[in-house]
């Protein structure tokens, strides 16, 4: 047994997936081989499919929809999980004032508006000057333009997040901005930010303050793609605050910042050169006046908490499949009754019960196969479409695709229903011949 397990786990993942699919399909294939041995019911089955073709199509559609729901739900859940994780990938470590890590993660990574306490200039300088810190970017948020959040940060962080700008150039003064990949502003456009977000945003609160877009970032697959990024000095200046630098530094932007002129930041996005450095920093700055956390770890906790929801979704998918399987069974019984006279004729002219069994099972198998295949494709379309909606609404780039997991789900469903299709096939052979013949 251990040896078998060793062999199995030694196989490449692709081979395991294919083997699992074959194993799941094996009951159906074996049943088909046994049931159809020696018979050629193809023409009759095609005739049955053409007869009452509308009812047959409805039946196939029901199967397809149920399979699509199962496939779509599992693919979507996984896509959402992977998308949210991918969006947080560039955020190694976040240091913020004590509070809720989840709230801070939602604010800093997913740009969800929230009120959070600020870190002081002294705290920022302490972090930024830590020898293990390679990048310490303060952020500032609270403004928006045409629904897109206006985020203040540093050019280094923009480059860390998305690489070099793909259009134009990086902002160089506090009055310049870089658009996220899908932000609703074009390069060269000037705009005045509104204070706040959504319907409550005050459009004229920052009248007279203008940013000019100088470039556009590459896509990151995160809500930052819809944001407009400006130097943090610009955000502070727009709000009438000091800009993080002494007056004699002129219009310089970016680190280092002077603690005496630092108005505060809700979070510092930190990266160390070495992985262990991030852990050291997390440990060092987890203290009463600061909290340091890995967004990836918080997200993993969140996903853990969401496991119940995930399991509920999986359960829903299974329950749907079971309900549909039962419906299929009942439907096949009814459809078989419709064909009772034709089946009785076959028996009258000498067909064995086993042949009737083979015809009815093949007919059922055709409907189920068609439904399962169409369902797999519909599931992919459903996942694809829903991903686009989720991406549009959350700006988290979600790509839900059909993988081997879904193929295994469908293969299992296929085998189970084909085994259950033995029941109506058996029932068809037990019907009263003469009664059916005379009806």
């Amino acid at each position: 047994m251990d040896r078998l397990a060793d062999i199995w786990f030694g196989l490449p993942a692709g081979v395991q997936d294919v083997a699992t699919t074959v194993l799941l399909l094996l009951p159906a294939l074996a049943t088909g081989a046994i049931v159809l041995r020696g018979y050629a019911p193809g023409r009759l089955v095609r005739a049955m499919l053409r007869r009452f073709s509308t009812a047959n199509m409805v039946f196939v559609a029901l199967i397809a929809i149920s399979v699509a729901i199962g496939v779509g739900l599992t693919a979507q859940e996984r896509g959402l999980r992977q998308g949210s994780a991918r969006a947080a990938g560039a955020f190694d470590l976040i240091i913020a004032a004590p509070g809720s890590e989840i709230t801070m993660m939602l604010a800093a990574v997913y740009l969800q508006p929230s009120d959070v306490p600020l870190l002081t200039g002294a705290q920022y300088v302490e972090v930024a000057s830590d020898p293990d810190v390679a990048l310490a970017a303060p952020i500032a948020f609270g403004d928006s333009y045409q629904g897109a959040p206006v985020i203040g940060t540093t050019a280094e962080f923009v480059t860390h997040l998305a690489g070099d700008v793909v259009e134009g150039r990086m902002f160089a003064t506090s009055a310049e901005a870089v658009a996220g990949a899908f932000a609703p502003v074009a390069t060269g456009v000037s705009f005045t930010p509104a204070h706040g977000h959504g319907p409550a945003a005050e459009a004229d609160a920052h009248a007279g303050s203008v940013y000019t877009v100088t470039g556009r970032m590459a896509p990151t697959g995160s809500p930052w793609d819809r944001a407009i990024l400006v130097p943090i000095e610009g955000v502070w200046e727009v709000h009438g605050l000091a800009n993080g630098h002494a007056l004699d530094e002129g219009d310089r932007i970016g680190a280092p910042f002077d603690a005496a002129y630092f108005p505060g930041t809700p979070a510092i996005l930190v990266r160390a050169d070495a992985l262990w450095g991030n852990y050291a920093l997390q440990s060092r700055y987890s203290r009463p006046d600061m909290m340091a956390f890995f967004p990836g770890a918080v997200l993993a906790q969140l996903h853990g908490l969401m496991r119940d929801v995930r399991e509920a979704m999986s359960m829903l998918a299974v329950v749907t499949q079971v309900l549909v399987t039962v419906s299929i069974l009942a439907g096949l019984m009814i459809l078989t009754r419709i064909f009772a006279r034709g089946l009785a004729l076959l028996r009258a002219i000498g067909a064995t019960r086993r042949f009737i069994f083979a015809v009815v099972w093949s007919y059922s198998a055709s409907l189920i196969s068609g439904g399962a295949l169409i369902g797999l494709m519909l599931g992919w379309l459903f996942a694809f479409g829903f991903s686009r909606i989720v991406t549009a609404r959350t700006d988290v780039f979600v790509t839900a695709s059909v993988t081997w997991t879904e193929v295994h789900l469908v293969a299992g469903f296929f085998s189970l229903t084909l085994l259950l299709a033995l029941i109506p096939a058996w029932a068809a052979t037990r019907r009263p011949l003469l009664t059916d013949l005379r009806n």
Partner: protein
Amino acid sequence: MRPTRVADMDADQVERDLAGLDLAVTDLDVRAPDGRQLVGLHSLTLAAGSSLAIRGPSGAGKSSLLYALSGLVQPRAGRVVWGKTDIAQLDEAARARFRRENVGLIFQDFLLFEELDVIDNASLAAAFAPRAERAARRRQAVHWLDRLGLGRAGLRKTDSFSGGERQRIAVARALSGEPAIILADEPTASLDRASADRLIDDLVGLAKGAGRTLIAVTHDAGLAERMDRTLTMAEGKVVGDAHG
């Protein structure tokens, strides 16, 4: 029972003598599920290759007798001996095999699969025949369709045919297995006079020409007149037996 299997024949051999299955029925008792007697027949014999019409009012037990002779109905008592085989003693599978190998059935309302073409309908039994026999069955079906004037209609669907044509397709289906016995239940009842007459000519001609036993339940005097013998039934009993 049968000297030659269908697979061993070709279309040129179809009218050979298939005699050898004389019928001997004794003390036949067929009952409905509720116990009511449908047929009570003391004795009936019929030589292989001869023809018999069964007549009588509705509910007389004609069809029940026909189904008992085919093995579709298991009698409560009595013997139905074809040649040396008492089909009343066979289990269902053996009776199905007997019908498959020896009996061609024709029904009043044709019982065709509308979605199949003419050849597929006529060679329906090929679907469950042994693989080696399937091609021969289809060849026989095509041969009989040709003999019945439907040779050019092979790939058409049956829903475009008249009642008479459909019944001729059903006759081809019954003959495609080269059965020694043809049992027909009101074969002309759904047809107009002209179609019925043509069908009678075809059915009787082909059956007699090939030495097959033909038994038909019918209200059609025209068909009964063409048969060697006419049995009249009432309330499950034989009340008349006319030869010639």
